[in-house]
């Protein structure tokens, strides 16, 4: 049961082979047994989860259940959930119990009837690529506990990889769904910007942040995206588009699919064995009837520098709300109002968050705004235009998700720039606002490798199709780490 797909779980629940209560209890037991070593969850509330499971069972009994009603899920602790402690991985919110639900939580719990198992660990305010910036300590990768699970959705990734949950939510500002999915052998999808509501999703960089599913397969991701996506008037950047069934094209054959291979993603900078795994995945696609064409993203090398201006600029503005007045941490001792702000923020934020707020304050300040912020936004346009050109020649773009497999805990923690470069293949997708996925495509030294798929705007159903057909031909995504029985 712990390795079952969402569809199988749905069938088991519908056939009354298991109740949601039993299923939820099964995963809660696994969490209490395996989480102390992994630190994937920061908050578990068994009673709350079991109450939701009882409600789901009532819906199933009454015949009003949806496809995913009663299936347990892990929620990244960036999503506000009413009555749940919602920390965003920060001391600033360590005691914050949300008075309201994020739209994603409302849609998944209240509407679809999914059962939240708890809140997963993450890099503080989603700023990190290894889950080491969390106030609640690092998460360990179930494939090798001396290594990081990636970040910022590291807790969600480790939870699903160790089967502490059948699936999880994540968010992706610069790679935070795709990179941990790659490092933990999961399938993760970052939708087109504006497809999933950001309401109640604690803001990091508002023009880049996007929520999405992390699961064992593309099929699971499609079913989850069906519950997460949709117009929300409470998010001013939510797109008012017709409702889609993201699973509608899963089975479509791939013959005639044109795969674009950006020469910039296949040059230096990527570990050779990782690259070999990616190339053999592409060969598999050719077997499935796809053709490849070389494309170019000539400005992609500028994505990391531009991102580290734009994201911190937006973060410095977004995180100004944490002032110790209305919610969150307030320093115990202070003098003036200004002193209260300065001490509350100094004590409530961790090092990486403070660094990014300061970069943001600097690049937005008078005299540097043009040279940094506007220049970064102009480069963002060049990067987005590169994709427009590339998609004239192909249907989907492929390459590595991450230049390496999971690195060791502490290996990059002291050098922010080295850490930033681990997102070198994922960031451009956020800057352009495109949908992207990571799909398991092999192992190097026992550690998973992810293949990145990048689609055109609103091509989620196609990406899921492309990932699903590959997963029918391969079994990489079905491999599980040892020691989680």
């Amino acid at each position, binding site marked *: 049961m712990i390795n079952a797909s969402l569809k199988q779980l749905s069938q088991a629940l519908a056939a009354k082979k298991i109740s949601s209560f039993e299923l939820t209890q099964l995963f809660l037991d696994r969490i209490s047994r395996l989480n102390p070593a992994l630190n994937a969850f920061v908050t578990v509330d068994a009673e709350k989860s079991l109450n939701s499971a009882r409600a789901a069972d009532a819906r199933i009994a009454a015949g009003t259940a949806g496809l995913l009603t009663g299936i347990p899920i892990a929620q990244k602790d960036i999503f506000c959930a009413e009555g749940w402690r919602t920390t965003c991985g920060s001391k600033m919110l360590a005691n914050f119990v949300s008075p309201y639900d994020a739209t994603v939580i409302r849609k998944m719990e209240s509407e679809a009837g999914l059962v939240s198992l708890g809140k997963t660990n993450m890099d503080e305010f989603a700023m990190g690529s290894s889950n080491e910036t969390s106030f609640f300590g690092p998460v360990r990768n179930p494939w090798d506990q001396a290594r990081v699970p990636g970040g910022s959705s590291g807790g969600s990734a480790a939870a699903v990889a160790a089967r502490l949950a059948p699936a999880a939510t994540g968010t992706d500002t610069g790679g935070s769904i795709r990179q941990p999915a790659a490092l933990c052998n999961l399938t993760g999808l970052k939708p087109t910007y504006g497809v999933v509501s950001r309401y109640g999703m604690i803001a990091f960089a508002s023009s880049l942040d996007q929520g999405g599913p992390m699961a064992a397969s593309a099929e699971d991701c499609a079913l989850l995206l069906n519950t997460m996506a949709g117009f929300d008037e409470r998010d001013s950047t939510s797109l008012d588009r017709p409702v889609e069934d993201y699973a509608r094209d899963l089975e479509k054959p791939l013959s005639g699919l044109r795969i674009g291979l950006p020469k910039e993603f296949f040059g230096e900078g990527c570990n050779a064995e990782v690259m070999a795994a990616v190339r053999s995945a592409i060969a598999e696609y050719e077997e499935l009837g796809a053709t490849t064409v070389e494309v170019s993203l000539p400005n992609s090398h500028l994505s*990391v520098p531009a991102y580290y*201006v734009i994201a911190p600029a937006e973060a410095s503005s977004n995180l100004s709300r944490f002032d110790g007045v209305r919610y969150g941490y307030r320093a115990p001792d202070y003098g003036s109002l200004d002193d209260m*702000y300065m001490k509350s923020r100094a004590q409530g934020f961790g090092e990486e968050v*403070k660094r990014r707020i300061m970069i943001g304050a600097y690049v937005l300040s008078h005299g540097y705004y043009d040279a940094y912020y506007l220049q970064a936004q102009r480069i963002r346009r060049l990067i987005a235009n590169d994709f427009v050109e590339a998609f004239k020649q192909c249907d989907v773009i492929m390459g590595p998700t991450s230049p390496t497999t999971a690195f060791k805990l502490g290996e990059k923690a002291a050098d922010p720039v080295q850490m930033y470069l681990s997102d070198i293949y994922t960031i451009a997708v956020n800057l352009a606002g495109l949908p992207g996925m990571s799909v398991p495509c092999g192992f190097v030294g026992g550690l998973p490798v992810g293949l990145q798929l990048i689609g055109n705007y609103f091509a989620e159903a196609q990406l899921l199709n492309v990932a699903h057909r590959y997963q029918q031909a391969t079994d990489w995504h079905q491999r599980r780490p040892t020691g989680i029985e």
Partner: protein
Amino acid sequence: MLRLGGAVEKTFMIPYNAFHFKTLCTAIKSLGTMSLTLEQVKRIAHLARIEVSESEALSTQGHLNGIFQLIEQMQAVDTTGVEPMAHAQDLSQRLRADLVTEADHRAAYQAVAPETEASLYLVPKVIE
């Protein structure tokens, strides 16, 4: 709302006076070799309303300079005539009807506040 000193307010004015263009060019050119001084780091921390000790300022200085070295790669690119891209979708802000849509949640929202009294948020005295 916390106001980040004067810096953030100024960003929404017409950026940089053309009359200062020469100054801008000199500033950018020197950036390649220039590093943030300790004083600048402290000034930024103050703008961001984050208290830093002397030793924190020093380690932050090292990290920020490393990051700015990475960012400097942007300066080699000629972006003349390129429209800045502020958002992933070039859409204008949606407007809604001017109607009350939310119920009163004051009690729930203030329950998570550090200090309130008579429905007001309490902070240190600002005006004597």
